[in-house]
């Protein structure tokens, strides 16, 4: 299996604080990879480095064998790598359908694509995906009026609308009603299996990530602590210590 995303020896410091130290992870095509670690262990920093929110101090990030560590966010997104946000970001003063319509892929659009009308198939797809995440009935509401959990689902649907090759999810179940979590796991798995989207997931909820990921990386204090399949990692003493605060 070829590597879709290859992060090698990436380091990032913020004014003397080491957020990521020499981190290497691989995301093979078609996989679901987990990224765990206690608060402040550098997970979101790593995400931001990958998708181009800030420059990295050292190392390399390759996506589909192309070096992307100096590209900026929109260029990386157009290559087919998207991320969702921990705090959930949607376009609040637009309806859900509009949020979906403007999320269609933009990679092959020329200049005139800026001005084109909405295609009927885009509309159809938007409605299907809204149905997939269970928001079809809310499609004409302003996205800003949805509940937090619904916004999270909408953001996920928008990401799917963009047909990414790799989707980076930052805590997809944080702040969501526990009864809905199984539904989210199921949808993530279906997006991976049916739509062929590779997933890299940050998650705090151990039950979720153990269920979801086939391979997990664990960060602590900005360093890669351990990695392996879920059942191996679950019994790893270093991981348990990191979460319980021991050294």
């Amino acid at each position: 299996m070829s590597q879709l995303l290859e992060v090698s020896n990436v380091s990032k410091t913020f004014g003397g604080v080491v957020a990521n130290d020499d981190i290497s992870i691989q995301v093979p095509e078609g996989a679901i990879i987990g990224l765990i670690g206690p608060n402040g262990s550098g997970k979101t920093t790593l995400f931001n480095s990958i998708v181009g929110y800030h420059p990295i101090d050292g190392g390399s990030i390759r996506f589909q064998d192309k070096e992307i560590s100096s590209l900026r966010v929109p260029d990386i997104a157009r290559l087919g790598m998207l991320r969702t946000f921990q705090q959930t970001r949607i376009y609040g003063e637009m309806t859900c359908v509009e949020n979906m319509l403007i999320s269609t892929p933009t990679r092959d659009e020329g200049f005139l694509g800026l001005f084109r009308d909405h295609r009927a198939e885009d509309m159809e797809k938007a409605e299907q995906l809204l149905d997939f995440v269970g928001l079809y009935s809310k499609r004409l509401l302003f996205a800003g009026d949805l509940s937090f959990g619904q916004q999270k689902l909408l953001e996920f649907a928008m990401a799917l609308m963009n047909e990414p090759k790799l989707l980076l999810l930052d805590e997809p179940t944080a702040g969501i009603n526990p009864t809905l979590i199984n539904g989210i796991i199921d949808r993530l798995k279906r997006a991976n299996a049916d739509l062929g989207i590779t997933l890299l997931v940050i998650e705090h909820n151990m039950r979720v990530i153990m269920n979801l990921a086939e391979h997990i990386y664990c960060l602590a204090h900005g360093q890669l602590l351990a990695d392996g399949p879920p059942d191996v990692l679950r019994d790893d003493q270093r991981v348990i210590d990191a979460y319980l605060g021991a050294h």
Partner: protein
Amino acid sequence: MTANKPLLYGLVAIVGLVAPFVFPAYVAQFAFAWLFILFALTWDAQGGQMGYNSFGNILYFGVGMYVCIVVMVGYSYNVAEYTAPGGEKAFTFSTHQYIIGLALGTIAGGIASAILAIILGSGILGLRGHYFAIGTLGLGIAAGELAAGWDFIGAGSGVAAPVFPDAMGSRSLFFYFVFFAITVIAFFAYKWLYRGRFGLAINAIRDDEDKAEAMGLPTTHYKTMSWMVSAFFLGLVGGPVGLLIGFIDPRDTAFAGVTFGVWMVLMAILGGKGTIWGPVVGAIVFLIFKEVFWIYLLQWQQVALGALIVVIVVFFPQGIMGFLREQWPERFGHRVEETPLNDMNVRGEGEA
């Protein structure tokens, strides 16, 4: 509202065509009404729809005005001789010279402004928030100062516009129809732009630009295009305004930041930012305010206008259309109209 649209457009068209003949004494005011609608529409394309509050769009208006005059004069005569102090008195324009010169100048003004917007946009539109607002403010004033120091275009003493040929009848009426045409074209151009991806994209930039970038939208292209379209229409109308007023002062007519430049912002807010009809309504209401102030408040009118800005911005930032939409959501565009309806449907299904 959808069903009434042809009726509404028909009504506006009839009023637009007939009004100057019914009330000939007010033709100049009517002409300015169309101009103000255009101002508000072009400003709203950034300030309202895209969330980029520009205080410098007047730049494109002034550039268009100067380019138009230079091209128009240059079509028939030597520009430097014309702009020399008192020089314009030596030149008269025949109907033919005036019309062709005006047509060439107007189009050149629009194109020059549009090109300038693309060049400036690549740098200025990278700024956000405060920095964009103040940066554009500086841009608009700088242009006025530069024009005031450039002898070729008359420097600080300005330049008189070519005199309207007597053979062409009423100057006000002629320019009334010029403004009317440009504004109507602009209105439908924006309507068309807002309907498709362009409209959603600039709305997305307004709501969350970082998200739009993270979704791969070419935000820089959209922002530049939006600015370019506004610059084009402002540049287009600049020349005719200069010709109607008859004299071009660099700071008070062309790059009139304190009057036109602020008014365009105010009109868009007053009418309701981010709607297509808001700027139209806002411009008309503002013009009425302004005329009343000018008639009844001698020398205090500018003070009253400043107070009006503060009152509108502080107490009424949602504007007229925004207010109406809050009050009667069901009567406004289908975005909000269908929402409660649909919600009820869902609830109905749930109960069944």
